[in-house]
């Protein structure tokens, strides 16, 4: 009696294992396309970067001499890298809050049920369709010291013209303005989508209770929008850390390294100075920074977010 029961149990276990293997195999098959893509474009470059950050390299970027953590030591002591970090932090502080607030404001405007609001929605989200290079060139003209429309406006109302891109104090502000303008389209679109997901009945109910527009905004709209806001803030933050295109076209990191944001600094280190080792070390540093900021944000920000 006992033996038959044992045999049965064993065979069940065997069948169980077989099925488990089949399930595992099909799971891997489903994952395979993503695994291949991620490996080629993400995991391999990341691994290679990490590897290079421990070496001195030749001009072709081949690893030559293993130096351990010396690259990291070097960049953390280098004054230009300190400057670059400072510029990046300032840049993030300039662009992220301002960009999100402006997009939220525009999204609130465009969410009203007015005739012709579709035109405004298109206009507000249109910067999404313009490439970084094209918009940077447009802004290059706007910022032009003598021909630029900005300075012409200022002088026409009696102000003194500003060296937008040429003065170390103004250059970062100018790049920030360009970046905010470029990012508004994306943030606007996501926030508008979030706003339109909020049930109209909530506002009707609040209206009957006698809540004013700003009371509704504070008690209903913002809390209901919090997941979307959280997403937009996270994405803009990461984007701001990774800004490159507009810096390259507008200022090339100058004047006197005031707009030398980290990614631009990495680019210069690698492809102008051919220091692939220290460039890789900077990349790893940036990766860790973004990782920490994002983790912190999820940890502290998410508590205040309401998910439905």
């Amino acid at each position, binding site marked *: 009696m006992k033996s038959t029961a044992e045999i049965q149990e064993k065979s069940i276990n065997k069948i169980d294992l077989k099925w488990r293997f089949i399930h595992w195999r099909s799971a891997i098959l489903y994952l395979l396309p993503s695994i291949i893509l991620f490996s080629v474009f993400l995991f391999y470059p990341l691994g290679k970067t990490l590897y290079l950050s421990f070496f001195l390299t030749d001009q072709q970027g081949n690893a030559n001499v293993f130096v351990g953590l010396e690259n990291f030591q070097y960049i953390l002591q280098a004054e230009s890298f300190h400057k670059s970090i400072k510029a990046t932090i300032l840049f993030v502080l300039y662009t992220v809050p301002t960009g999100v607030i402006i997009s939220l404001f525009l999204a609130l405007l465009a969410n009203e049920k007015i005739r012709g609001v579709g035109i405004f929605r298109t206009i507000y989200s249109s910067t999404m369709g313009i490439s970084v290079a094209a918009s940077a060139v447009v802004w290059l003209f706007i910022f032009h010291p003598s021909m630029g429309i900005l300075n012409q406006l200022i002088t026409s109302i009696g102000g003194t013209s500003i060296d937008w891109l040429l003065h170390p104090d103004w250059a970062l502000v100018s790049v920030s303005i360009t970046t905010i303008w470029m990012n508004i389209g994306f943030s606007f679109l996501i926030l508008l989508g979030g706003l339109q997901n909020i*049930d109209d*009945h*909530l506002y*009707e*109910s*609040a*209206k*009957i*209770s*006698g*809540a004013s527009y700003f*009371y509704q905004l504070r*008690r*209903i709209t913002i*809390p*209901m929008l*919090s997941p979307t806001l959280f997403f937009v803030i996270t994405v803009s933050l990461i984007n701001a850390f990774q800004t490159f295109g507009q810096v390259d076209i507008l200022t090339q990191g100058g004047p006197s390294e005031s707009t030398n944001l980290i990614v631009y600094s990495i680019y210069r280190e690698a492809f102008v100075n051919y220091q692939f080792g220290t460039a890789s070390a900077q990349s790893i540093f940036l990766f860790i920074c973004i990782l920490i900021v994002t983790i912190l944000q999820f940890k502290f920000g998410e508590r205040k977010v*309401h998910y*439905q």
Partner: protein
Amino acid sequence: MYSVELKQVDKSYDKEQLVVKDVSVTIEPGEFFVLVGPSGCGKSTLLRMIAGLEDITSGSLLIDGKKADHLPPSKRQLSMVFQNYALYPHMTVEDNITFGLDVKKMRKKEKKEKCYEIAAMLGLTDYLKRKPRHLSGGQRQRVALARAIITNSPICLMDEPLSNLDAKLRAHMRSEIRELQRKLGITLIYVTHDQVEAMTMGDRIMVLNEGVVQQVGKPIDVYNTPANPFVAKFIGSPPMNLTTGLVDKNSSKITISKEISIPVDRLVVNDTNSDQVLVGIRPENIKIQEEPSSLDLSFAVTIDHVEILGTETLLKFKWNDDSVWYAKWYGQWDIHVGQTVRLTLDPDSLCIYDGQTEKLLQGPKNIQHQHIREGII
């Protein structure tokens, strides 16, 4: 306790089609008034116009005798319960209930006291700290009710508040809402597509179809003497049986089928514009024929479907040009599908409608209200 008065109210969204046409009604203070009709008949639109969430295209609205057409919703002294409850999902039950008081900047202590009082009344005390998503449908419904009544508004509007609940809970909430309304003495305007809710809850009901008022009255009067075939079909479950009949003005008789002709009052026959009428009878007034009487209104039918509901038995059959009829008898009847039975119409329970204008020509004569003499137990 405020009255609500509608005067020739029209509503149109596209300036061409009227979704509400010429509605005039006075809702008395403290009344439970039900707007009932099929979906798309304009009942919710009417309610939203009273609430101020929709503009009135023409006509006027008076609340407590004062013109209120252009008042914002918050100034109309009313509260509203929405079909999907419209609870704020990010707030706790307590915050949801007190939202209306927050707006009015009531003191914190007073607010809390009031919230607890209302919560106790509706059995929500244990759930005050929870979010709406952690509540069942019935509990959410109660939160919506609590939120509506905490503001002490003299008028409360409800837009199909029970349609998201299961049948059992709905029956329970029906009586609960009715009792609450009686206790608070508020004027309650209630929208529903469910004629059972209308019948059981309303002091008076208004039947709407395609934006036009069909009939206003006490539920039982609407049930007994429906003003037109639409109301006859809409109110009552199963609906009133209707069939066409031909009028013979000389002999003042209405012929329904080969077998049946009903003698009617000469005055009734003279009122008709056409020689066609619609004859209706409630399912419970179709009886099984037991003995031949002087006036023979009997006919033989084959039963298509039988439902025994415990207290009553429902029979479905086709008769006279294949119109589907129902008969409802008290008790449990052992009749099977396919059986032929001989039925008879109660001549005093017939409703006769004009074939063209669809106006009621003659209502039933034997409406019996049964009374219980007080003191007898």
